[in-house]
Structures are given as C-alpha cells and as structure tokens.
C-alpha cells in the first residue's frame, strides 16, 4: 500500500513537473462568430521562461501595429469593425524560447461578388459567368439560379446539356454553351453559403447577334456611295470641258496666268 502511494506520488510529481514546463495560453474569446467588434486576448499562465515581447498574426502574416516589447504575459488585440476583410485565423505569439502561440478564429459571412455584373456573349458561342468569394470561412456550397420575369429557376450541373458548373470554395463558374438570344438573356444569381449564412450577387447576361453589325456597315457604305457620286457630279458640272486629271495640256495658250505670276510662257500661235 505504501509502495502504491509512493508510486502515485512519483507519477504525480512527474506530471506536475511536466505541467510546469508547458505553458498554457487562455484565449478570450475562444472563437468569434457573427460579431461586429471583438477584443481578442491571450493570457499566458505559468510562464517559466522570460518573455521578450509579443505580437499577433493574421492568417500567418504578422501585424506590425500589434508588436509589443512588454514582458507581460497578457496581450490584447482589438478588432473595431469585423468584415470579410479582417476575418480569418488570428494567432497571438509570445516571444519566448521557444515561441508559444494560440489561434483564435474570427468567422464572418463571406463576400460574394461577380467578376463583371454585366456579361456579354456571342450567339452560338460559349458564355461564362464567374463569381468569387472572399472571407473566412469560404463558402462550402454554391447555387446558381436564373431569374427571368420574376421567376427563378435553379440551374444544376448538366441541366439540358448546355449548363456546366465548376465550383471551388473561392470561385464558381457557370458556362452556357450555344447561347441563344431568346432563351439565355436575363439575370443569373450566384449564392455562396458558409456556416454563418448565404450571400448572393446578380449578373446580367447579354447575347450579341453576329449579324447585328451588318446593318450599320451597309448604312455607312450607302452614305459613302452617295457622297462620292455627289462630289463627282459636282466636279463634272463645274468644268465640263476640263481634261481628265493627270494629263496636262502641252501648250498653254491662255493669257490668264500672266496677271500676278512671274511665269514666262511661249505661246505657239
């Protein structure tokens, strides 16, 4: 019995020694979810090594303003306005030998936006609509919906052989083959969902007809033909007896040029 107690005491003291060599960081709060402001704090309990300073990192990138040389075992970082920009993984780092860190996750609604809110496609060609997401955590689910005249129709991968959806957590691409002017013009809504909620954006698709440019072209050609005809008729009327351009008269027997010019001419009469 005494041996058992001695053994237990030995084991306990061993564990307690272990416990004193591993510092524990208490984070407050442990996780930020759907809040507009937050104060992140790290409390280093039982520090047995000297603390040279501390700083915070955001998604593995050190935050310069959070650097502190204080040897306190307590550090705070304020988040004034939480948006998808500053969501992510925050780590408090105590500069000890070796370093000790703990992570606090800041979760927000994702930001879902379209590359271009107005997309153009050519008739019978392929149309590509893209939506991207930013924030943490990234959407796990993407849904495309077509809206026309107030009615919404969901689009699934492979619907009618023309639709193709390729999704990754930060991007979703909807490809429509063989665009047609009657069926495919309209608004397309992409929705990204993460554990906090769903955010959507709308894209308007316009389909251009290949022959649309033909009419302005023919109009301009007609205008050119009319103008050139008018100019040539005018030229003919101005000088009906004028010789064609390029060939000049061999001998000039007009005396009209003598007035103000220093021309010496020999007339052949």
């Amino acid at each position, binding site marked *: 019995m005494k041996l058992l107690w001695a053994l237990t005491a030995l084991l306990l003291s061993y564990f307690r020694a272990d416990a004193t060599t591993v510092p524990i960081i208490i984070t407050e709060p442990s996780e930020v979810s759907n809040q507009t402001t937050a104060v992140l704090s790290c409390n280093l309990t039982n520090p047995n090594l000297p603390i040279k300073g501390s700083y915070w990192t955001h998604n593995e990138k050190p935050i310069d303003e959070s650097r502190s040389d204080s040897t306190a075992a307590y550090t705070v970082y304020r988040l004034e306005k939480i948006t998808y920009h500053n969501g992510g993984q925050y780590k408090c780092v105590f500069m000890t030998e070796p370093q000790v860190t703990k992570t606090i996750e800041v979760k927000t609604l994702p930001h879902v936006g379209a590359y271009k809110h107005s997309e153009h496609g050519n008739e019978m060609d392929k149309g590509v609509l893209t939506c991207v997401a930013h924030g943490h955590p990234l959407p796990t689910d993407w849904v495309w919906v077509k809206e026309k005249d107030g009615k919404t129709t969901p689009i699934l991968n492979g619907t009618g052989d023309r639709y193709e959806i390729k999704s990754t957590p930060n991007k979703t691409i909807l490809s429509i083959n063989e665009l047609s002017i009657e069926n495919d013009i309209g608004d397309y809504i992409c929705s990204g969902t993460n554990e906090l909620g769903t955010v959507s954006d709308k894209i308007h698709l316009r389909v251009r007809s290949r022959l649309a440019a033909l009419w302005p072209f023919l109009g301009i050609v007609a205008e050119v033909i009319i103008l050139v005809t008018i100019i040539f008729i005018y030229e003919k009327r101005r000088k009906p007896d004028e010789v064609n351009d390029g060939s*000049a008269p061999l001998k000039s027997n007009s005396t009209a040029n003598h007035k103000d*010019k220093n021309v010496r001419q020999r007339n052949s009469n």
Partner: protein
Amino acid sequence: MTSRRTRPPDGGYGWVVVASTFFIMGLTAAVLKNFGHFFLDIQSHFGVLTSTTSWVTSTTIAMFHIGAPAASALTIRFSQRVVIIAGGLLCSLGMLLASLDLSLPWLYLTMGVLEGTGISFSWVPAMSMVNHYFARWRPIAYALASSGECVFSMVFSPLFKWLIETYTWQGALLIISGLQLNLCVCGALMRPLETTLTTSEDDAAVLPSKRKVIFQCSLLKQPELLLYILFAIFAAAGFFIPTLFLVPFSTSLGIEKYWPAFILSVLAVADLAGRLFCGWLANMRLLRNLQLLVIVTTLTGVVLLLLPISHNFWAILGFSMLYGFLFGCLVALHVTSIVDIVTLEGFDSGLGLFMLFRSIGGFIGPPAGGWLVDQTNDYSAAFYLSGFCFISSAVFVVLVDRLVQRKKSAEAEGQQTGKVKRDTVTQEPFLEITLPD
C-alpha cells in the same frame, strides 16, 4: 526642256483639302493608334500570347512605312486623288476580310498587310496634297490637317471600346471597315492642281522623252536629305519609347488605378495644342523651319532627360504635358521642313524616302529601350535613351540647316548672274533658259 510646275493656290479650295486631310489623318493614323483595344479579345479568342497579337500592329506599321515610297511613286505617276481612293478601298477591304475571322495568320494578312498598305496609300498623298496646295500658309495648313490624328484618336478610344462591347470585335472591325471607306470620299475631294508649263526649245535633238520622273532616287545623293533622314531615324527611335514606358514608370512610382491612363490622355491633348501652336508660330516666319525644328528637338530631349527625376504624380504630369506639347511641335514641323530641303517638286519622293528610313528608328527604338530597362532594372534608362536620341537628331538638323543655307547662298550668287531665278511666291528656284527669237 519641259518642266511641269504647279502653282500653290494658298487658300480657296486649299482649305477643303485641309479638311479632307484632317479626316484622312483621323481615319488612318487614329485607327492605327487604337488597335490596342482589340488585343485582349483577339488574344483570348485565339488563345495566344500578347506578343503574338502585337505582331498585327507591327505588321501594319511596317507596311505603312514600306509602302510609303510606292505611294509616292504612284502619286507622281497618277494623282493624289486616285491613290487615296485606292488606299481607302484597300483599308476597307482589309478590315472587312479581317472581320471574317478565319485564323490568326489571316489577321496578319488582312489587318496587317492590306490595312497597312491602304493607310500608306491614303496618308502619303494627303500629306503631299496639303504641301502642294500651300506655300505661305503651309505650316498652319499642315498643323491643322495633322491635328485630325489627335482629335480622332481621342474620339475613337471610347468609340472602339463601345463598338467591341456592343458588336463583338468581329462586328466592330466590320463597322470600322465602313468608316474607313469614307477615305474614298476624302480622296474624291482632292482636286488636282492645274499645271502650267514653261516650255522652251532647247537643242532640237533633245526630245522630251521622259516628261515625268517616276521617282527621284537621285535625291538620296543630296547630303542634306541624307542627314535629314538620319535625323528621322534617331527621332523615330526616340518617338515611340516614352509612350510605351510612361505607364509602367508611373505605376512603379506608386501611382495606381486609372491615373497613369490619365497621363496619356493629357499627353494627347498637349500634342494637339503643340501642333496647332507650332503651326501658327512657324507661319509667322520669325525663324526658319529648320531652326525652329532644332530648338524643339533639343528641348524635347532635355525634357525627357529630366523626366526620371520626378517622384510624384504632379511632376510626371507636368513633364508629360511638356513632352506632349513639344512632340506636337516636332510633328508639325518635320514634314513641311522636307520642302525646304528638296523643294516642292522633289517633295513626294523625299517624303517616301523619309517615311521608309524612319521605320528603321521605329523598329530599333522600343526594343532597345526595353533591353536597357531590363539591364538596369530601372525605367529611367528608357527615358535617358530617348532623350539622347532626340538630342543627337537635333545635331543632324543643325548640319542640314547649314548645308541648305550654303546651297541657297550659292543660288543667290547664281541669281546675280541671271541664270537662276526665284519664284516670288514659293521662293523656289527654277532655271530659266531663254533663246533668242
């Protein structure tokens, strides 16, 4: 000996010619400047690199320069009107075929070769026409006509973007083909000048076999023209570098978003102002055209050498405005100066040779600038090179001016002996031979 001389009307119908040239410059040079809008679409359509796509523009510019002597020769043989109309048809055909979108080599052939040749056939005779129609008012007439390039360039930039968005790039090319067909209208307006002949009977044995000279290659034997062509080569090398590197340079200084593009627009406006101002200034004849050209070229070089010291947006903007203005002045002067060097009769051939050799500078300049920037890892190097090119070209102009002045004084002596007479209006010399009746 029979000589065919045209008398510059210096006004009257000449202003119609100026208006027509205004449109021709717009429909040719401004279209060329805005080719860049098509790059992204063509690149993604064919799935090639940017450098492959930019060969289209290079081909067009190359054909523009190579076609210039041919255009000059044809202008002399036929008339400006015929050649411009032919050029308009070529341009229009080129863009029309390009819009069919058959393949990338097809684009090189249509948008590159056909379009470039068409632009050359329209631009060169138009230049020729303006210079033939004016003597006293030549600088202003030329400046007004060449400002068409600036004005149309500013209009075409948003227009092309809108056309490509609304009609696809193939449709946009089709519509631009129609627009370029208007070159034929402009050509139709180019009424040829009435020619007066002075005939004098020389030895009866000498028959006037070749009344018209097709192309005066002999002009190259004149040292003045040779030196001027050297000026053209260096100036062309300096021309294209700043516009290429201005945007990357300002971005490297931290200027972002659309402000670098704004600098380029300011440059274009300053260009227009420079052309008009210098045309008016040259018209006042306070200095010789060539002297003015020396001053302008040297100043341009100095401004470019100083540009890299700018560290913020306003400094770059200021220097760019100055550079744009001086660039416009240079453009307003450098073609009309050819008349001072080779006289009006040799002008067409001289212009063709000038354009042909200028292309050498245009081809060497940008790659040399790019290589220097890569070597020194600093965009300033490109501006230093450009400034150096301009200042060296100014040296050539000084030499040309000296030679031309010497030739003129030799003629003045000849005048005193009665052999050489000077036309009272155009100040061009002509040889007068009188035989006893």
